[in-house]
Structure formats: structure tokens, C-alpha cells
């Protein structure tokens, strides 16, 4: 048992570090610093994706045969840590981390060869179509309906909280194709071209001032049967598979550590009154507590990774623990970072994206975005299976 990298992994880390040093330019990292949201501003994300695509590093978790890197888990972990340290824009959203694994696992050959390359090169950007106005945590109650009509489905209904749907070209959606039997059995997984007639997208501005979420309406939208993934009624199993990727499929430790390091930088600079928060024992106590949380989360990630490497799986209690703790840590860092703004916390810059505004010092820009980052962080414990759902999963395992 040890925490040691191999010589090969050290070499790999240095290669990644060198690449990031050369290609991840200040314009990109500044835009990400000024982004309060979970995912990068799409224009910024696509720019970085194009650079990585050139190198073949867009999709660290994909197998080589589909254009991924074919890296080991340890290499993916190291890559993630380095990218976060360097401050890369978070562009790997629904396309790379969610729909792609589903297409690889459940898609047919035609679907794989058409969709996967378009994800890698950024031609397609996907939005998620799971939640509905009446179906959140209780996803199986969804009502958006797809009626089979010859070789196409006619879709009617509405999906909500679709991240960046207004920039997306396509949506993967869970739709109801039957009302008989268990309600999970009537759900089907389809792919919808967002340029299809009958689609309306309504923006939802979040409490952090950014337009990232949308409600999408379907009014007799035609979807070819060939854009169904798996069989009719198989949607629920596919959805569960996908949520595993949303939940435990990625590492968050690098991002949390990078957030904490940014807070440390800001706390080391004098405030307008000359004090430095890093000299304040109350601040440092809270800061140090959060740092111990980040260390513990890192160890859980590495333990889970070790289990997977040895052919096992992390188990539901550790996976849900990580989902809960990551959200809490991110929220507590954002909250602490906002708590040291002083009266500047009252200023509110409405313009989005913030990186379009004239450049200021790094510290001033960090201060400018801190309130919005805190507001946005509240979503962490809601999306991808809320923390209450995670507690249900843990309780079910404990008490069975």
C-alpha cells in the first residue's frame, strides 16, 4: 500500500505539465477564473477543446478505439490534477462524460461512428434531457411522451434544467413510450436534433446571474427511430448507467484543491484595511478544516481508484459519500471565499460572461466573481442526484 507514482507516471505528469504550460494560455485560464458556473463558457470551452483535440487529449476516459487516450486510471487522475492546477476551462460536460459512454455501451455501430467523432471535434455539443417540471429526484415520474409513428417518434412535453441547451446541437432525453407495467419500464432513451421544428428553448437565469439552464419545449417534434438508443423501454437502465458516470466517473479532488489554492492566494493579499486574512486565526481555522476535508476526499478518490484498478468497484457508500462531500467542500470553499469580501460583497456586476469586461488584476477579478461563485455553488448538492438522494442510497445499503 503506498501513494507513489511510478517513474513512468512521473514522466507522464511532466509531459502533461509541459503541454499545459505551452498551450493553456492566459486568455483561457482568465476566462475560467471569471466563470462562476460548473461548466466553462461554451466559446471558451470549445477553443480549449480544439487545442486538446489536436493533441488527442479531449477525452481522457474514452478507450483508444473511439478516439480517446486509452490512459490508465492513474494517468487520468494525474492528467486531471495537472489540468486543474493549471486552471483549464471545464468543457467536459454532457457530451464527453455522459452521452459518449452511453453510446459506446448501448449504441449501434452506425450511432457510434456518426456521433462519437462529432463529440471529439466539437461539432456536436449535447444537452441533457432528464428532469421535467414535475420530475426531479423522482425521475421515473417523467411525462414527456414519444409516440411511434412509422419510422419516427412524435415527441411532446418539456425538459428542464438542461445545461447550455441554448448552445447545444443535440439533446439526449428520457421519454415515455408506454404507460403499462412499472413506470420505469415505459421509459425510452432517444437522441433529439435541437434544430428540429417544434422545439422552443426558454432561458432560465440562475441565482448567480448566468444563463446556463434552460427549459426546452417539444411540440410534435419528429425523431427518427434510428436515433433511439437501445430498445424501447430500456431507457431507465441506460439512465442509471449514465448517472454512474455523472456521479463517480470523474475526479473532483484536483478541482477542489485548485479552488482552495486560489482562496489561499487571495487570503494572502492585504485587504483594503491592510489586514491579511491568512493571519486571522478564525479564518485559518476554517481554511485548515476545509483543507483536511479535501485531503480526506482525495484519499477516498484514490481508494476508489485502487479498487477499480484491482478489478473491483468502489461500492455505493463510498461513491455517494464522495458525491456528498465534494459538493459540501466546494460549497464551503466558495462560502469562505465570499465571506472575506467585506463591503465589496455588495457590488454586483451583471455582465456575463465576466471575461468580456476590461482586464483587472487577478486578485480584483477573483473578488469580482466570488459572490457569484458562492451563489452558484448551491447547485452542487442538487444536481446529479441531490444529497438527499445520496443519503437514501447510503441508508438503503446500511439498513438492508
Amino acid at each position: 500500500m503506498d501513494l507513489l507514482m511510478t517513474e513512468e507516471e512521473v514522466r507522464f505528469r511532466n509531459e502533461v505539465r509541459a503541454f499545459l504550460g505551452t498551450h493553456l494560455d492566459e486568455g483561457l485560464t482568465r476566462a475560467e477564473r471569471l466563470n462562476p458556473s460548473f461548466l466553462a463558457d461554451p466559446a471558451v470551452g470549445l477553443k480549449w477543446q480544439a487545442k486538446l483535440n489536436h493533441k488527442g487529449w479531449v477525452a481522457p476516459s474514452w478507450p483508444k478505439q473511439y478516439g480517446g487516450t486509452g490512459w490508465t486510471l492513474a494517468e487520468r487522475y494525474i492528467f486531471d490534477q495537472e489540468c486543474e492546477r493549471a486552471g483549464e476551462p471545464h468543457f467536459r460536460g454532457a457530451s464527453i462524460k455522459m452521452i459518449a459512454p452511453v453510446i459506446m455501451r448501448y449504441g449501434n455501430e452506425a450511432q457510434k461512428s456518426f456521433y462519437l467523432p462529432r463529440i471529439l471535434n466539437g461539432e456536436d455539443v449535447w444537452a441533457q434531457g432528464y428532469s421535467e417540471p414535475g420530475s426531479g429526484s423522482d425521475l421515473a415520474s417523467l411525462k414527456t411522451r414519444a409516440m411511434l409513428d412509422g419510422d419516427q417518434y412524435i415527441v411532446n412535453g418539456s425538459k428542464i434544467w438542461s445545461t447550455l441547451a441554448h448552445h447545444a446541437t443535440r439533446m439526449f432525453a428520457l421519454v415515455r413510450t408506454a404507460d403499462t407495467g412499472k413506470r420505469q419500464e415505459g421509459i425510452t432513451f432517444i437522441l433529439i436534433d435541437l434544430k428540429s421544428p417544434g422545439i422552443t428553448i426558454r432561458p432560465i437565469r440562475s441565482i448567480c446571474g448566468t444563463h446556463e439552464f434552460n427549459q426546452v419545449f417539444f411540440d410534435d417534434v419528429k425523431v427518427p427511430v434510428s436515433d433511439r438508443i437501445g430498445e424501447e423501454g430500456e431507457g431507465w437502465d441506460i439512465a442509471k448507467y449514465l448517472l454512474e458516470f455523472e456521479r463517480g466517473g470523474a475526479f473532483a479532488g484536483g478541482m477542489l484543491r485548485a479552488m482552495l489554492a486560489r482562496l489561499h492566494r487571495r487570503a494572502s493579499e492585504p485587504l483594503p484595511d491592510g489586514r491579511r486574512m491568512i493571519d486571522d486565526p478564525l479564518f485559518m481555522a476554517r481554511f485548515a478544516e476545509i483543507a483536511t476535508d479535501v485531503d480526506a476526499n482525495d484519499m477516498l478518490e484514490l481508494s476508489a481508484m485502487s479498487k477499480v484498478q484491482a478489478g473491483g468497484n468502489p461500492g455505493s457508500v463510498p461513491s455517494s459519500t464522495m458525491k456528498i462531500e465534494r459538493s459540501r467542500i466546494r460549497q464551503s470553499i466558495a462560502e469562505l471565499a465570499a465571506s472575506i469580501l467585506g463591503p465589496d460583497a455588495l457590488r454586483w456586476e451583471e455582465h456575463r460572461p465576466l471575461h468580456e469586461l476590461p482586464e483587472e488584476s487577478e486578485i480584483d477579478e477573483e473578488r469580482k466573481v466570488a459572490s457569484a461563485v458562492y451563489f452558484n455553488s448551491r447547485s452542487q448538492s442538487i444536481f446529479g442526484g441531490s444529497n438527499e438522494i445520496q443519503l437514501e442510497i447510503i441508508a438503503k445499503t446500511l439498513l438492508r
Partner: protein
Amino acid sequence: MDLNYSDEQLLLKESAERFLKGRYDFEKRNTIIGSETGFDAGIWSEMADLGWLALPFAEENGGLGGGAVEISLIMEAIGRALVVEPYLASIILAGGLVEKLGSADQKAEILGGLIAGTSRLALAHAERQTGFDLGNITATAMKSADGYTISGKKPLVPGGSFADIFLVSATFDGTVKLFVVAADAVGLTSTQVKLVDGSRASDLVLDNVPVPASALLDGAADTLDEIEAAHDRANAALAFEAVGIMDALMDATVAYTKERVQFGKPLAAFQALQHRMAEMAVKCQEARGSALLATLSVDAPRVTRIRGVSGARAKIGKVSRSVAQEAIQLHGAMGFSQEMPIGAWFRRLYAIENTFGTTADHLKRYGEIVRDPAMLSGSLLREPV
């Protein structure tokens, strides 16, 4: 990087748990802590037979060459079973220092009996004013004709009431040194003290205690550095003891709420209680991660060691307290009674929070380390040596 236990480690874990489950149940423990000595010589010699007392020592010193991970497995089992015999104080802390600081002769003489279970050590270092500053020592050693004379007060010596040999720290020529002092030495008074968790310690007073020249353990450039490192090893061990206790509290709480029926259904059927137990499980998981980092840091360079060890003591202090409080609450009045082990686990965790540094002390020590941006932002993965 690999955080999976090896097959041998899993066997050790299983055998430790089985031994204590069979030989050290809650009733047996109550008998021991109610006895005059607060110690069971039979259990101690069985631990010797199982190789536990030899475990951390190098093979050349008669040990089994076990590392921090092996020790952590024993400590986890000790936590669950609430063992009061001084495994940590005598073997890990004091024994470890003899191995680090002793000459070949000293090691042969002292470790032989320790490993055989016929002799027990205790480290008498901290004093009333020492607090968390291990260098703040006022006991003194003076050169005498054929050795040294030691004077000072050492309160709450861990494992002191079971020891026949003390390692006593004292300033000599302006630096802290460690001396081997027999429990029956002239001028030494050891008074047994009952501790909050049912275990024992001793208040030690040394009044011009003469020791021979061979009593000086002087094998390190800086004795204090070694004492600090030994306390970090002990703290990593305590972290896993706490993890063992937390899991035991978790298991007991789940079992109790499944069994206890109120309002016509088991307590475990109430969602309000289910979520509280799930939150306990989250904390148990986190504590295990922290304790593992501490364990894998004890042999690392000093700052990395502190980051792992004090970070774990800080984190585990906080979450273990919460788990123990919740366990009592979810047991209702039964959790408040001494008839159940819940309260004993609760009190042992409280003792751990106040042993070798408090939770706040460790948070502060950790905070000083992570003020360094390189330490803060660096990965937990390490470069090969």
C-alpha cells in the same frame, strides 16, 4: 499508487478482529477496568504469542518488520474492542523510541523483554507546562560520578502504571535527552491514575534518581526530533483506533435502530433517523480516508508527515465526536447508560481527542503546514524515492 490491503494484511486484520471478539468482549473489559491493576496479564501474553508485540520492530531486533499499515490494522481492532492494555504506549510509542535511539546493547536488553511480553515500557515525556510544545521540558539530568541524576515531574505517563521501565526525557546540557529508568529506581515515585476512558496512567515524580551512564539513549542527532516523530507514529495509530471505534458505533446504532420498535415500527424505518445514520456513515468513510493518509505519511519527510498525521487528528477529532454524539442520541436513554458499550466508545474517543495533542492543536499544526502554497496545491501522489 495502490491503496488496497495485501492478502497478508487482510489476514492480519481478520485474525486481530477474531482474537479480540473471542477474548475481549465488553464484559471482560469491564472486569479488567474494575480490577486493581486495570490490566490483564493473560491477554498481554496472548498478544505476545500472536506476534503483536513484535510486529513493529525490525527483524534484526527480534521483531516482525511490520509497517505502519500493519500497526493500523491492530489499532483498528483495538479501537472496536476498547482494549485498555498499553499497546500504543508501550510498543508503538516507547518501544519505537528505543528502536530509534538505542545502541545495539540497549536494544537487545530492552526490546527482548518487551517483545516477549515480560517487560513493559512507558515514555515519560510531557510535563504539565509542555502542552503541544514537545520541547518545553523542565526535568533535568545532571552528570554524576558514574552516570546521571534525574529530577522532575511527569504527570499522566501513558501506560505508566503497567511499566517496569520508563523512558524519561530531561534536559541535559541544554538539549532534551532520553534516559532509561527502572520503575523501582531509588527516588522514583509512580502513582496510578484512573483515566476518563477506564484505562490507567501514572503520575511520575523523580527526585534525584541515579541512573548509570548506560541509561542514556543517545543514538540520534536530535532526540527531540525523534520524540516528535514517535508522537506522530502514535497519532497515526490513534487515528486508526478512532476509525475502529467509529465503525463500531455505526454498526451498533444500525443494529439497535433495526431492533427497537416504537410507534409500531423499527426506529430504522423513520427517514429522519435513516438520514442521520447515513450522515454518520459519510463521516466514517471520511475518517478512514484521513487515517489512511496519516498511516502512509509517518515515514515521509517532516512536513508531509505533519500534513498527514495532524490533518487526520484534526479531521477525525471533529467527525468522530459527531458520530459518537449521534450514536448516543439514536440509542436514546440506553446510549446514556454504562451498561452498553456506546458510552465507553464515546469516552475513549474523547480521550483520544485529548491525547498527544488536542483536535485544535492538530488543526493549528496542520494549518501552519498548508499555509505553504506548494504543499496545499500539490497532489497526494508522491514521486518515487
